């Protein structure tokens, strides 16, 4: 234990990294929080207009783009950016988990599975801004692969440009994001699967267990640590989703696909209202923190186990 004691020599090695973290991580976080409270964090500039306080938080929360009570009440879009983010998580998370685990298991036992995995991973390699444009094209009435599939399967009456209608814009983006994000989940589960002890599965097969039993009673429970990571990363990704929406719908029509990060960007880039933008960023951080804490806790518990 003596060797682990923090001597001044050891502390000095931390200092360069500490300075960088202080300047580029801690200070921006503190500055953003101060800015959201109308406290000027940068001397010599005039980026704050109102009096210090929670005024910006009140303004953001009462902004219909953030939360639209009428839309929520009538279950019609737009419901507000924060509700759209929640809907995104509610649909995207289970879908991406199911797709990820099924493909990973399936590709484990299929000849040429690694090649197919590479193709699936392409979604992750594509820049998300391009991914947004691809989603827009995919749901186009004439050019889109989704509508071509619908027509081919006798559902041509459903063919339309999905991203321009308020009732379907958000859902089309979410479905598109499942494709873009599945590369990550498939890769994570594939890595998890390859590290599972094969003798456990082989013993189950010898005992006469069918595929369903092996999947639900052995594979999925043993992949719990991977699932926790995938869940946390997916929720974080869903909460900070921006580029897909920006490139494909700009949050429209009528704000029907607006999300928190886009709202933050609009305050910042469109209005030059840095304080309001910082407020949305702080709210976004507050929403993200519990997820991160739960994730860290679960990982530490896993480590202890």
């Amino acid at each position, binding site marked *: 234990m003596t060797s682990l004691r923090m001597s001044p020599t050891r502390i*000095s090695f931390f200092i360069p990294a500490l300075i960088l973290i202080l300047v580029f991580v801690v200070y921006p976080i503190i500055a953003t929080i101060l800015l959201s409270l109308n406290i000027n964090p940068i001397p010599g*500039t005039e980026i704050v207009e109102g009096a210090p306080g929670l005024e910006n938080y009140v303004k953001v929360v009462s902004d219909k783009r953030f939360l639209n009570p009428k839309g929520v009440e009538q279950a019609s879009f737009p419901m507000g950016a924060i509700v759209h983010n929640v809907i995104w998580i509610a649909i995207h998370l289970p879908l991406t988990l199911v797709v990820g685990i099924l493909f990973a298991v399936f590709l484990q036992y299929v000849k040429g599975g690694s090649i197919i995995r590479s193709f699936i991973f392409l979604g992750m390699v594509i820049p998300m801004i391009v991914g947004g444009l691809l989603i827009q094209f995919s749901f186009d*009435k004439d050019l889109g692969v989704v509508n071509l599939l619908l027509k081919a399967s006798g559902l041509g009456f459903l063919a339309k440009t999905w991203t*321009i209608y308020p009732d379907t814009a958000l859902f089309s983006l979410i479905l598109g994001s499942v494709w873009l994000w599945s590369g990550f989940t498939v890769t994570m589960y594939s890595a998890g699967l390859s590290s599972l002890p094969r003798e456990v599965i082989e013993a189950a097969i010898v005992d006469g267990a069918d595929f369903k039993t092996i999947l639900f009673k052995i594979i999925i429970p043993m992949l719990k640590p991977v699932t926790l990571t995938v869940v946390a990363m997916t929720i974080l990704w869903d909460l900070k989703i921006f580029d897909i929406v920006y490139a494909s719908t*700009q949050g*429209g*029509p*009528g704000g029907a696909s607006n999300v928190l990060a886009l709202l933050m960007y609009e305050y910042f880039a469109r209005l*030059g209202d840095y304080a309001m933008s910082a407020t949305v960023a702080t709210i976004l951080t507050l929403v993200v923190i519990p997820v991160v804490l739960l994730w860290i806790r679960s990982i530490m518990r896993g480590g202890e186990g």
Partner: protein
Amino acid sequence: MGSAPTVTTKITFLIIGIIVGALIGYGLGYATITPREVTVTSTTTVTYQATASPTPTEKVKLIVIGPWAGAEMEAFQQVLDKFMEEHPNIEVEYRIYRAEDLASVALPQFEAGMAPGDVIFTAWGWWVKEMGEKGHLLDLSGLVNPDEFVSGIFDPVTSGGKIYGLPFTAWAKPGFWYRKSFFQAHGLQEPKTWDEFLQLLDKIKGISGVEAPIVTGDGVGWPISDVTEHFIITFGGIDMQLKLASGELKFNDPQVRAVFENYLVPLLEKGYFSEPIEWTKAIEEWWSGRYALYFMGTWLTGMVEDPNDLGFFPLPGCEGVVMGTDYIFVPKYTEHPEEAKLLAKWLATEGQRVHVGTHAGKFATWLKVSVEDHWAPMQVVYEKLSKMKPVPDLDDTVGGDWQKLFWDQLKLLWVDPGKLDDVLNTLTENFPG
């Protein structure tokens, strides 16, 4: 425990001391530095005093930023080439930024004392004025004589006796464009009344292979707002357009609602307009005969294969035409202010003569450019437009966050006309001021 500190310990304390010192210094600076003053100005008349920018003796490179790509960029490049020919010591590099992207990128750069370019174009006069009032732009008063330009064109970029932008060539959004060959092939004629317009749409809808009579251009949203404004000017009058832009009239006012309810919404409900299609893709589809009519600006003339096959008509009874220009401004943070001003002045004057002669589909705002200087197809358009009164663009006049809201809400109306009241109320509630 009681031993003297080692060299490493001393260094450690020294570094910590520097950090703490820096933080204290920062804190003191925070408490003592006087915030930069922001000048708030008000609009006044500007008097012209000619000033000359010297030609540089050393080679200088300027960055010009504009919104044009493709065919429009090729036309503008001819203007820059001519300038470089006349000013061999100035090299000009052109970069593309859409107005909405420029607004996002430039403001943070200005705040940091930087500029993305030396001479910049944007159609948003309101934005130029706002940046000028914040002290980010050079005052261009005296570079040109405002009396030599179209009346009132400096108003959107003038504040506190200073001119922050110079006008470049202008465009107009005159009405519905069609292919003469398509109309001839199907025995169609320009309508003279609203009823004839409806009959025309019905006839077009019955033509085999036509998806919808009118193609709706999409993008960030301006093509939809353009056609909407045309309906407002036609059925509400020029006065309604001006009052809506100034906020004097609300969007949910019964007379405004009537324009939407009686004229625009029925056409949307009957499927006379297509779904919004990316506006350049829409040109191809309209030109191929999939759609018959396209509401677009005069720059369309430079974007089609055969401009001589083009015809257009405004809605019957329309007396006004939305016109606008691209403004040239020079950021205060340019490294070559004199050369940038020289280029800005040239572009606003002689550069216009070059530009209107290309296939850009633009008109000159500098009155010393004659009709004959314009590209031949534009002379025909110019002749037809001269009978209409110029009107400012509604959303470009209001600007800010509301402009994006306007575009977005109209997109919603286009796909869901039943939400008319929601759309009008949203536009009213969020109108600035």
